[in-house]
């Protein structure tokens, strides 16, 4: 599929990722309802909302793992709605998963090297030893060291402590050299005292990387996000700076209400 040569005039190149009229329903259940968002280049956005608000669904729609019923997704101004997930990854849209989605039998070095090799387009080469790709291996290792996984990168993934596995999720996404990174609860399941470590890593990522993360811990959200999007019932309820969101009585109600029933 050919992505549009002319960027959509309403989207523009200043936005790393945008959606317009994005909708998805399963039968009578609407999980995404007319979602229009802009993520400016270098943004640090948080996506929050009660359980079942459609946060992960939105990430699935953006990355192409779910096909929308209607609406469009723009990456750097280009319409990527028709592209397959791996094609979007190659254009710079990466994600991590809320539930570890790793290569259990590979070690961290192999897994990240694989991702780097995929990006470099050398994984079709069945005639050469992997070790020939010295640059790719060293690049993978650098990513691992940056994420403090250097000392355990020869251990099979399934033997890594859970917190390390969460970091490997991010390492795999970074190996694709993303322009936009969507983090689905990067610290999910990690004890609170360790979740800070993971967000320190996230905060330390390059400034020109555009970030959107889903997170339930409001302390973390207010500490790391420059902008917050509140999703309720598959639709954008409101969005704004952390101060605006904190002062919004509607958001408070949604959260308190959800908590009262949940």
């Amino acid at each position, binding site marked *: 599929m050919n992505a549009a040569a002319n960027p959509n005039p309403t989207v523009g190149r200043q936005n790393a990722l945008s959606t317009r009229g994005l909708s998805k329903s399963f039968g009578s259940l609407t999980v995404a309802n007319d979602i229009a968002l802009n993520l400016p280049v270098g943004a640090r956005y948080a996506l929050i909302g009660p359980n079942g608000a459609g946060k992960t669904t939105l990430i699935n729609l953006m990355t192409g793992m779910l096909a929308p019923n209607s609406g469009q997704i723009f990456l750097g101004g280009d319409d990527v709605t028709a592209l397959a997930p791996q094609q979007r990854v190659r254009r710079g849209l990466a994600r991590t998963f809320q539930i570890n989605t790793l290569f259990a*039998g590979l070690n961290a070095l192999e897994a990240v090297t*694989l991702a780097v090799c995929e990006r470099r387009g050398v*994984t079709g080469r069945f005639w050469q*030893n*992997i070790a020939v790709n010295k640059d790719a291996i060293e690049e993978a290792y650098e990513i691992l060291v940056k994420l403090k996984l250097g000392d355990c990168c020869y251990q099979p993934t399934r033997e890594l402590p859970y917190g390390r596995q969460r970091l490997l999720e991010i390492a795999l996404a970074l190996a694709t050299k993303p322009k936009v990174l969507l983090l689905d609860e990067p610290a999910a399941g990690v004890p609170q005292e360790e979740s800070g470590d993971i967000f320190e890593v996230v905060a330390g990522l390059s400034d020109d990387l555009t970030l959107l993360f889903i997170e339930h811990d409001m302390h973390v959200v207010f500490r790391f996000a420059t902008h917050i999007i509140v999703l309720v019932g598959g639709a954008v309820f409101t969005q704004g700076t952390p101060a605006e969101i904190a002062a919004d009585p509607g958001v408070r109600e949604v959260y308190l209400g959800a908590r009262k029933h949940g």
Partner: protein
Amino acid sequence: MTDIPTVAPQLYLQSRSRWRPIEIVFWLATLLPFWLFPDYLSLASQIAVASLFALSLDLILGYAGVVSLGHAAFFGLGAYTAGLFSIYVWGEVFTGLIAGAAVAALVGYASSFIISRFRHLTLIMITLGLGLLLHEAANSAGWLTGGSDGLQGIEVWKVAGLFSFDLYGVTAYSYTLGVLFVVFLAARRLINSPFGLALRGIRENFVRMPAIGADSNSHIRKVYTISAALAGVAGALIAQTTQTVSLEALSFERSADVLVMLVLGGAGRLYGGLIGAAVFMIARDQFSGIAPQYWYFWIGILLVVVVMLLPNGILGGLSKIFARWSRR
């Protein structure tokens, strides 16, 4: 500095593809039949062919996680192609092998477009269906294949113009073992390549692959084609060494047997198919000596016992025992 492992990353990955002493011992042991069992060389050559066939299945099943119950399609294609090649073109064996591999690869490539789009049970049924289809096609095309009488009149030249196929199977075993070794070297290289790493990625987590930018379908198409070509080589070998091809080469039973061999030996281990084929063929030879009609009964028991006690096959069990023993 805890961040620096003891071995540099590149050297570490390189070391994983280094030849281990046990491998050299294994290949030296394949030469033993020449001296120890000179009466069993034709069995040994059948084992070499079955090993090659199981190795080809291992590439798709053990490394890419693609289950096939119709792999005999490519074995049979290679066998009939090599047989017909020797009848209608000439009897030179290496070009015959290449012809068998090429036809099997071509059909493998064509069917890979269907194969790569499905997984699990659907895939098993599709491969089974394609295998049955080809079996019936060969059966009804009696003018070409000889139908249920088998393909007759295959005559092959001396290997390299020097060694004719003798009654004892010295040439047959040397030839099949030589081809097996060369193909094994190629498969070993493939497994340790970037492509091999991608295949393991597909096996370990199919869902994650697109999220790291991988086009799994194109990887699967490629490995399926390679696997078909290697199965074709195995089939061509059986045609050349037995100088006949029967419909059995395309049968469901052959597809099932090769799967059993691989599971017995241990899938995804490169040597699993080789060990499994040897165990299976020797067991069949011995059991059919005891009770000619009931030997599948014993194979059945062997399979159930191995799968229950050693989920990763004989090799998986051995490496576990070895790991425990060396940790002491």
